[in-house]
């Protein structure tokens, strides 16, 4: 029951073309690291870029599991919650520096992910997808029920401490943005290495044909658990960014099923089994409601109350999902590839 039926291994282009191909990436990084901190206003960072970075990372994590390894998970938000609350507790109780508590939070999320990944060894398809909901409900329940996780605060709300690394305060918008950006860049680079290496080939083999993968000697069980653990760790770090850099005050209810679906939608809209898909999808998911509320404000000024706008947003989101599945199952990433090819064509011909 694979999601992506085609996998084309494109041979590497010659060296000079590779340099040329890396140019867009260099430009994007230059803009993200230099132009944004210097030019962007607070609204752009707080309302768009920070949630974009956190959700992109969560999308990357889920894409590893769903896009590359073919295991559908409906409980991603639970691992964001694990990451956020674990980092909060490591910071509070051990007084560790931020990178250390973030790393340990990733380990905690990976451990929980491993436990909830165990059914994948036995279950397939929908049976597995539904059983990942167990993670969603169990984690949310545990965080609400046991006050220890939130240091005894009412309804489990935690306020993240002001962040900083090695005495350098990063609690301003630009500081938090840079912290999130560096984290996301590092993990994206790491993940790119992994999915293009031997492990990535194993993941895809398990996704496309488990029996055949086993025949040619892919360690299927280990590969599946690896996917669950790494994916949960990445989503856990996304949770840390969400809680420490973006919202700074979070509660377990914020990591509900809707958030899990949101992350799944990011992966579908962006494109399964692509790195850039997570970023494209997250961009659309973050910007889409903002544009929509502007538009409804423009057309039905004063008529539409926030509740109605929210409902319209729900309908529009559902429609977009179905449209993408029908018209562009490979997501925004495929659209981008087509655009690039079309732009390159006149030069070639």
């Amino acid at each position, binding site marked *: *029951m*694979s*999601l992506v*039926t085609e996998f084309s291994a494109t041979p590497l282009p010659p060296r000079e073309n590779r340099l040329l191909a890396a140019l867009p990436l260099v430009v994007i990084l230059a803009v993200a690291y230099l132009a944004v901190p210097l030019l962007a206003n607070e609204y752009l960072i707080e309302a768009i870029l920070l949630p974009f970075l956190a959700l992109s990372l969560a999308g990357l994590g889920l894409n590893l599991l769903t896009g590359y390894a073919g295991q*559908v998970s409906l409980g991603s938000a639970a691992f964001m919650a694990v990451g956020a609350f674990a980092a909060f507790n490591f910071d509070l109780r051990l007084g560790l520096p931020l990178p250390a508590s973030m790393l340990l939070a990733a380990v905690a999320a990976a451990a929980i992910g491993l436990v909830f990944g165990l*059914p994948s060894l*036995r*279950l*397939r*398809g*929908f*049976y597995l*997808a*539904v*059983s990942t*909901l*167990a993670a969603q*409900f*169990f984690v*949310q*329940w545990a965080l*609400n*029920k*046991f006050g220890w996780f939130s240091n005894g605060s009412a309804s489990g709300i935690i306020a993240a401490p002001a962040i900083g690394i090695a005495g350098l305060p990063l609690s301003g918008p630009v500081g938090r943005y840079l912290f999130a950006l560096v984290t996301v860049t590092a993990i994206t680079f790491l993940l790119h290495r992994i999915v293009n290496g031997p492990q990535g080939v194993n993941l895809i083999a398990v996704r*496309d*044909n*488990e*029996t055949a993968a086993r025949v040619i000697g892919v360690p299927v069980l280990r590969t599946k658990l690896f996917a669950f653990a790494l994916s949960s760790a990445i989503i856990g770090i996304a949770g840390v960014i969400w809680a420490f850099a973006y919202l700074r005050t979070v509660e377990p209810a914020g990591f509900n*099923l809707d958030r899990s*679906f949101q992350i*799944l939608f990011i992966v*579908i809209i962006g494109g399964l089994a692509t790195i850039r898909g997570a970023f494209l999808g997250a961009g659309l998911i973050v910007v889409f409601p903002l544009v929509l509320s502007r538009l409804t404000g423009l057309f039905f000024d004063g008529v539409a109350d926030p*509740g*109605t706008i929210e*409902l*319209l*947003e*729900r*309908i529009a*989101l*559902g*429609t*977009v*999902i*179905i449209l993408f*599945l*029908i018209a562009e*199952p490979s997501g925004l990433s495929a659209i981008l590839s087509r655009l690039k090819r079309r732009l390159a064509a006149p030069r070639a011909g």
Partner: protein
Amino acid sequence: MDWFTFLFAVEVAIGGLLSGVMYALVAIGFVLIYKTSGVLNFAQGAMVLFAALTFVSLTEMGLPFAGALVLTLLAMTLLGITVERAVLRPLANRSPMTLFMATLGLSYILEGLAQLLWGTQVHRLDLGISNDPFEVAGIFISTFDLVAAAIAGAMVAVLTAFFRFTRTGLAFRAVADDQFAALAVGLRLDRIWIAVWTAAGVVALVAGLLWGARLGVQFSLSLVVLKALPVLVLGGFDSVLGAIVAGLLIGATEKLAEVYLGPFVGGGIEGWFAYAVALVVLLVRPSGLFGQKLVERF
């Protein structure tokens, strides 16, 4: 254990069994669609909400019970046709997971649409069934639960008879068995899908009325889907009988666990306990109690 605590345990178990019937009621809607098209329809919960909300709003506009029922059935049929045209047909021959995600999108649309049309406030729904408990040999049983169980039982009987004795039912079974072969002998797949989705809409309406009378008709009604999913995986996605047995099983264990296990872990475990039960059983039987053995298709 003395007599009274034993009686209490029995009462809890019976209450659980009866609420299990309510879970099964939602699960049957899933089974109908899964059996004939291999689609796990996540929007079933949204359909429950949509049906109940439409019905209640129509009665509140002054329509008699029967009139509102007919109009709601009409609306569900229309919904079935629309879904077939706009979602199923363009996605024909795509992987089951793709279709599942499409129904996820559909559930967003239906939830939004239902509340946009009929408002977000809570509606009271009175079906005229008494909610007073009555006593049998020292055990209190809710009349409403019993009536609900009877209605669910009747519906299962009707569905089973329909599948077994009518031509349309035969066509349903043929499509469930082999879509290509069904097409080859001249069955109209599109019409069958419309019929199945309409039937699932009818099941959703019944479930919506009973659940709505219990909880009030509001957004949270669409969350009954989360109660039905563990029932489904436990019973097997393609078995009506499985849905009933698993519903009863989960209803009873959930209530017993809530009463006897809950206090030790702080309560509120009904959100995930059903999933835990389902998982444990699945580890032994990976396609549920009554599900068809999974055949790998690539």
